[in-house]
C-alpha cells in the first residue's frame, strides 16, 4: 500500500516537472522579447528540475538497501544550488541583452534605466 502511494507521488512530481519544463520550452518560442523569454526559462526550469529531482529521490529511496540520508542530503544540495545558480545565470543573460540594446516588445510601458538617481 505504501509503495503505491509513494509511486503516485513519484508520478505526480514527474508530471509536474515535465509540464513546467515543457511550458518553459514553448515559452522560449512564443513570448515576444528576450526578457519575457528569460522569465519563462528561469522559473520553469528551476521548479521543473526540482520536481524531477524530488521524484527521482522518492523512487530511489524505496530500494531495499537505499541510503536515505545520502539521498536526502544530495537532493537538498542540488535544489539549493539550483536556486542559487539559475537566477544568477538569467540575471547575467538579461544584463548582457540590456547592454547590447536588445529589441524590446512594442507594448512596453516604460524603461527607467537612465532615470536620475533618487
Amino acid at each position, binding site marked *: 500500500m505504501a509503495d503505491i502511494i509513494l509511486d503516485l507521488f513519484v508520478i505526480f512530481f514527474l508530471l509536474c516537472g515535465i509540464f513546467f519544463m515543457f511550458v518553459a520550452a514553448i515559452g522560449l518560442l512564443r513570448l515576444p522579447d528576450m*526578457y519575457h523569454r528569460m522569465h519563462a526559462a528561469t522559473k520553469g526550469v528551476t521548479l521543473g528540475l526540482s520536481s524531477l529531482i524530488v521524484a527521482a529521490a522518492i523512487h530511489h529511496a524505496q530500494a531495499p538497501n537505499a541510503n536515505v540520508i545520502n539521498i536526502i542530503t544530495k537532493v537538498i544540495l542540488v535544489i539549493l544550488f539550483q536556486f542559487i545558480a539559475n537566477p544568477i545565470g538569467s540575471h547575467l543573460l538579461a544584463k548582457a541583452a540590456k547592454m547590447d540594446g536588445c529589441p524590446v516588445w512594442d*507594448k512596453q510601458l516604460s524603461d527607467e534605466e537612465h532615470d536620475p538617481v533618487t
Partner: protein
Amino acid sequence: MLSFFLINLLLAVLWMCMWGLFDLWTLLAGLVLGYFLLGVVSRTWYPDGKGYGSKFLNLLSFTVYFIRILILANLTVAKEIITPKLNMTPRFIRYPVKGMTSLQITSLANAITLTPGTLTVDVLDNDQVLLVHCMYAEDRQTAIDELDELRNRLMTEVFGC
C-alpha cells in the same frame, strides 16, 4: 543564525557518535534535541529575547512562502504561454536597495527573479538600485508594493533585522 545552525548539525553528529548509530532516525533525533537545547541557550545572545528557536521557525515560514510564490510564478507564466492572447504590461522599474549588504542584495535579486512576473536585470548606481523587469506592471506602485513585501519578509525572516 548560520553559526547556530552549524552548532545544531555538530550536536546531531555528536549524538550519532555517542550512540554509534549512523542512520536517519538517530540524525533526526539529534537535530531535534539540539534544536531545543539551542533554543533555550541562544536567548541570551540576541537583544530581542528571541532565540535560535523562533528564528529557525521564521526561516521555515519564509521557505514555505517562497515555494508558494515560486509555484504561483510558474503558473502565471504557464497561463500566459498556453492561452492564445498575450496580455502582459511590461516595464523596467528601478528598485532602491540602499543600505543593504551585498549578500542581502544578491539574495533579494535571486528571490525577485523567482517570484511572479519579475526578473532582476541589472544593479545600477554603485549597488544602490536594482533594475527589475516586471511582466505585469500596469500600475507602477502595485508592482513596487509586491517587491516591498518580498523584501520585508526576506529582511525580517532570513536576516533578522
